[in-house]
């Protein structure tokens, strides 16, 4: 990239300089210069092209060097022999690629065929967003990336088979269409024709009818992409990337190729439609501004009042501070809003969750093992996956966490349930309680992971309600601003109150410390501003302007 910029900058300067000189030359000379320039530009373009795609020769030396790269970076997940069975494999979803069976998701070759070297190069460079595969573009130089590719190819017999040369099964990718509303509309038609909704859901939330039963080639659970989350597209989000995915299929997964049964145009339209589903997210904020209203606060998430409240998008991550850790969290982003009046405060939490889990039976689950991962139960008694989850059914839950006591300065309790002297207060909503017609909101206190959230003994003063629509929970939790309970957080206007969020997705076997959580954000409840503030500000602004004007006038006069 830097090289490219330098190259372009140099060329630009060169042309500018030459063009200035051109003015002073005769016609003949001008033509000469133009000819020279043309040759120069063409030459530069060719050179530049070569630099960008310089591929290391595939030879024994490169393979040996590649093995070194592999032993440094790859085997913990992909295994010593490349069978996708490294020590970390068991805690990952999706599982690391098995290079021996050589089924690759991201290819530009037809279904069932090997990837070309450039496909592997792209995957290693960009990583696979939303999975454990990092982008090695910044960790390895280009040579190292080619070397490791050549080594990986020696791990499977398939690459040695000349009859399987992937360069013979490359798909041809045309140029993407100009995206218009019409193209997107046609893409929606293709979405329905190809029945993408069967797995990806009607609105692309990854919650189709067949979503919960999908597995990879080896029987481990795989979930279809929530197409609204662009940051999790394994192979990139450009139109060409998306088009390539359903042209080639994603081998080793249930994602099929549509090369035969959708026309090229249909696939481009579909790519445009899928891209249009991507929601942008803004994770820059950390301030949740409560909006003061006069009305009674709604428990209903669909109340129009919520449209007035400012929204804060909060990134969520798996809990990996204390055992049992959680590396495959379901909820990775949450939109929060806050309303308050003189008496009460209400929060609305909105987040995507593929499946509505409203039953709860922990069975003989506890104590939870650190390595119990969600893997499909198979009807096949032969299938004996490493960890089966057949003993319990878990609910969806969500919690808001505050420091129990007012904080001074920037010091806050630990965001993972506080610690000894700095307890936290949580408002937790449980879907199963709501389903049974009980109050779903529980007031809890915690003092660190050894003293995890425990329900308060007195009846909960808080209320709430969750609504589940098409792969999304919208949960409202409401409480009095001020309570008499000592162990409750008290809310007052004009101060920054640390607030953080936690979520549990039952069907992802999340419970206890196996959860998604956020770090601290700030909640501010702005009191109504007295009108005098605005008047004084206006007066000061005008006065300052006047003074400045006077100054300038005077200084001008003195100069004259």
């Amino acid at each position, binding site marked *: 990239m830097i090289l490219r910029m330098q190259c372009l900058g140099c060329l630009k300067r060169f042309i500018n300089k030459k063009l200035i000189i051109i003015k002073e030359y005769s016609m003949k000379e001008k033509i000469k210069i133009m000819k020279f320039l043309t040759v120069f530009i063409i030459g530069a373009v060719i050179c530049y092209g070569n630099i960008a795609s310089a591929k290391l020769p595939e030879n024994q030396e490169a393979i040996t060097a590649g093995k070194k790269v592999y032993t440094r970076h790859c085997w913990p997940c992909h295994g010593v022999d490349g069978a996708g069975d490294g020590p970390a494999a068991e805690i990952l979803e999706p599982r690391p690629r098995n290079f021996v069976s050589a089924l690759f998701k991201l290819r530009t070759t037809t279904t*069932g065929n090997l990837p070309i070297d450039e496909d592997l190069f792209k995957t290693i460079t960009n990583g696979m967003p939303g999975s454990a595969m990092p982008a090695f573009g910044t960790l390895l130089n280009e040579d190292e990336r080619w070397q490791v590719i050549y080594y990986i190819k020696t791990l499977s017999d398939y690459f040695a088979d000349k009859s399987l040369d992937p360069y013979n099964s490359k798909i041809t990718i045309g140029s993407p269409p100009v995206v218009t509303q019409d193209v997107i509309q046609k893409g929606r038609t293709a979405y329905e024709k*190809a*029945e993408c909704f069967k*797995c990806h859901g009607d609105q692309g939330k990854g919650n189709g009818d067949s979503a919960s039963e*999908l597995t990879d080639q080896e029987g481990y659970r795989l979930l279809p992409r929530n197409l609204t989350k662009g940051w999790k597209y394994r192979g990139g989000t450009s139109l060409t990337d998306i088009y390539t995915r359903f042209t080639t299929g994603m081998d080793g*997964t*249930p994602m099929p*190729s549509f090369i035969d049964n*959708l026309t090229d145009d249909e696939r481009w339209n579909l790519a445009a439609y899928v891209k249009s589903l991507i929601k942008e997210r803004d994770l820059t904020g950390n301030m949740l501004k409560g909006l003061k209203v006069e009305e009674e606060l709604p428990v209903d998430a669909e109340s129009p009042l919520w449209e007035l409240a400012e929204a804060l998008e909060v990134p969520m991550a798996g809990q990996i501070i204390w055992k049992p850790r959680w590396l495959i969290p379901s909820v990775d982003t949450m939109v929060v809003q806050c309303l308050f009046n003189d008496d009460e405060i209400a929060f609305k939490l909105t987040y995507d969750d593929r499946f509505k889990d409203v039953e709860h039976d922990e069975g003989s689950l506890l104590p939870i093992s650190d390595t119990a991962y969600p893997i499909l139960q198979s*009807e096949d008694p032969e299938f004996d996956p490493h960890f089966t989850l057949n003993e319990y059914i878990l609910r969806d839950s969500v919690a808001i966490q505050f420091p129990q006591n007012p904080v001074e300065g920037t010091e806050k309790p630990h965001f993972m349930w506080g610690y000894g002297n700095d307890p936290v207060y949580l408002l937790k909503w449980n879907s199963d309680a709501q389903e049974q017609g009980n109050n779903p909101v529980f007031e809890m206190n915690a003092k660190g992971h050894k003293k995890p959230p425990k329900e308060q003994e007195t009846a909960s003063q808080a209320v709430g309600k969750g609504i589940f629509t098409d792969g999304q929970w919208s949960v409202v939790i409401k409480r009095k601003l001020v309570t008499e309970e000592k162990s409750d957080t008290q809310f007052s206007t004009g101060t920054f109150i640390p607030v953080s969020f936690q979520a549990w997705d039952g069907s992802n076997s999340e419970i206890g410390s196996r959860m998604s959580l956020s770090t601290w954000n700030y909640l501010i409840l702005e009191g109504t501003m007295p009108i005098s503030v605005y008047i004084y500000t206006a007066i000061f602004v005008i006065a300052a302007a006047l003074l400045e004007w006077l100054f300038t006038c005077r200084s001008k006069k003195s100069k004259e």
Partner: protein
Amino acid sequence: MKFLAGFVIFFLMIGLSSHLFAGNGTVVGTIKFEGENPGYPDANINKDPEVCGTGTRPTEKLILSADNGIKNVFVSIVGVAGEKLAVPAENPVFGQEKCNFNEHVMVVPTGSTVDFPNMVDKVMHNLHSYSMKNRPFNKGVPFGEKISMPFTKPETVKITCDVHKWMIAYLIVHDDPYYAITDADGNFKIENVPAGTYKLQLWQESLGRKKIDIEVKDGEESKVDFAMTPRKRRKKS
């Protein structure tokens, strides 16, 4: 010299034909199940009720008759120096109806191109193959469309549809005509087998592979009755 060559060829031909037509025998038998039935649950039909129907369907993983005869065992004789299956002029068809493959175990000659039409079910099926020697495929086939895939190497290929998880079938790519698939009572019959000693290979999707020594005699019927037992449960530590 010419005479000598002709003589040699003449005798060679006699020799060859005498070998080829040394006489054929027949292998018949019954494959039964022995041991504790693993009790595979019925398939739960819970998708696309208007096309696939509802309720449950008996599993095809292990189909036993009243006296434990096993259906759908692929019985083949290994290494017969005899005829080879010709690639059929018309592509074999592997279809499905009501979200069920038309045949659970189907044999096609090596080198065949198989048509997978979706002409009955008004839903999309994604036909997903699991194989080692033939490159696997996974293609979406909406209603009214078909795909054609070549199978160039002998192998047992599993075909599934991920949308309808219960849809599972096996396509056996095979070289020669010395095979049979057991009927509902577990009976099979392989005819015109050149006399000799061979290995009879049994394969059943849930019980695995088994080899038995057999001898085929000219004009005789060799009887092979065999009991397959459940595979030992695969244990991962």
